[in-house]
């Protein structure tokens, strides 16, 4: 019975894609230069935070 898990999985994926697309539009300056700079900085800081917080189980098995 994985439908709930699948649904949340799909929702997560869709949400991430939409968020990613939004950031992409931000960064390539669709909303203007100031937003682009803010967007790229926000994305990078967010990415670094996630990489730090979730080290992807990077230790040996």
């Amino acid at each position, binding site marked *: 019975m994985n439908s709930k898990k699948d649904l949340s999985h799909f929702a*997560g*994926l869709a949400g*991430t*894609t939409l*968020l*990613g697309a939004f*950031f*992409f*539009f931000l*960064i*390539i*300056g*669709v*909303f*203007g230069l100031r937003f*682009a*700079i803010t*967007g*790229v900085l926000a*994305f*990078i800081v*967010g*990415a*670094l935070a*996630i*990489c730090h917080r*979730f*080290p*992807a*189980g*990077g*230790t*040996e*098995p």
Partner: protein
Amino acid sequence: MRLDPSILARIQFAFTVSFHIVFPTMSIGLASFLAVIEALWLKTKDSIYLEIYKFWLSIFAMGFGVGVVTGIVLSFEFGLGFARFAEIAGPAIGPMIALEVLTAFFLEAGFLGIMMFGLHRVGPKLHFIATCMVAVGTLISASWILSANSWMQTPAGVAIHGDHLTVLNWRDVIVNPSWPYRLPHMISAAYLTASFMVAGVGAWYLLRGIHQGFARRTVALGTAFATVLIAGQVFIGDILYGTMLKYQPPKMQAAEGFWEEKSQSPAPYYWFIIPDQPNQRNRLELGMPYLGSIWLTHSLRGRVEGLKNTPRDRQPRMAMVFYAFRIMYGLAILMFGIGVASLWLRFRGRLFASRWFLWTLVFMTPSGIIATLAGWYVAETGRQPWVIYGILRTVDAVSPVPARALLSTLIGFICVYSVFFSAFLIFTLRIIRLGPAEAPPHAEASGSLKNAFRPQVLDSPARVVSTQSS
């Protein structure tokens, strides 16, 4: 059969420079990657980093070697195929490349030997400095050569009288209008190339279930770097787009596939066209509505300027520029998507378990190289028919060498470079198949300069030695 020397000269240069650029792109990225890895090894003493270092060092060495010899060809090819270009542009780009040799090539070459073979002669700390020097050398080299090429795109700081060019102001020549944006764009491209290469190989091992420790660390590092880098790269790319639109409008007009002086409103974003350059129109065009206005004019109904804004004898070939740009841009979007996906998978703790993602990484291993090549094709074909934009046309720059000679050497280059490429590919794939060797359990001889003078270090066999007792 009548052969045109100028076409042959162009094909020859295009072939040799395209082949060459693949290797420095890898070298710049891998050199810095190796410096980071060695720093991590020295800091954490975790032997997995030594394993990663040694694995990528051997691939780096091969790529560097091919890059050097194909690069030497280029420094002479200016004169061989395009003597008039060399005569005119020599006073401007010659000194820049001379400084590149002095400040970068010698630096890389001088410390490369120590980096590759000196671990047992100088110890880890000095060796790390050697690695850093090589990495710095690649960056300085990129800096100078981008300056030279950017000067060809957006010339500044010179005065021309007939065939005689005089540099008026070196600062304007070196820091020409497009250089400050093209340099970070190229460096990011090199770093992205290395990130995806590293992540792709790691992903391959994860899919096969082998070398888990090595693979997890490299996939984690590769995707993290790639994610941060692609955001910056897309941003820089957009700024560069605006810069080139200002200084070299025909290039960007050709890149988007619009012909009319002012396009329809709202403008679509074309993904596929069949251009008909003689008739100045597209036979077929497919695109996404509204996206053109949004991306290119930052408004919902803006009109895009087409290639007819440029006189016909100054137009680049739209097909080449358009598709090269789409390939580069398309790969960038894909890279961005992968970056976002990698963040999501980290958040869910499934970065190493998601097979579809790992397969994507494997397929994206050469993506940086392809995107970089495509970007350079935009840059160089988009500048045509000029070799120095607005100053010298490519057809007027060719050497007085007969077409037969050009054809025979072109064939020679293709044959020889095929051997180089096949060997590189075969040996790299073999290194990947063999996998990373186990790192030695003990650290190498301690890294002080004093120890480097000790006879034990000098005469020790070039194998692993156990930690020195002091």
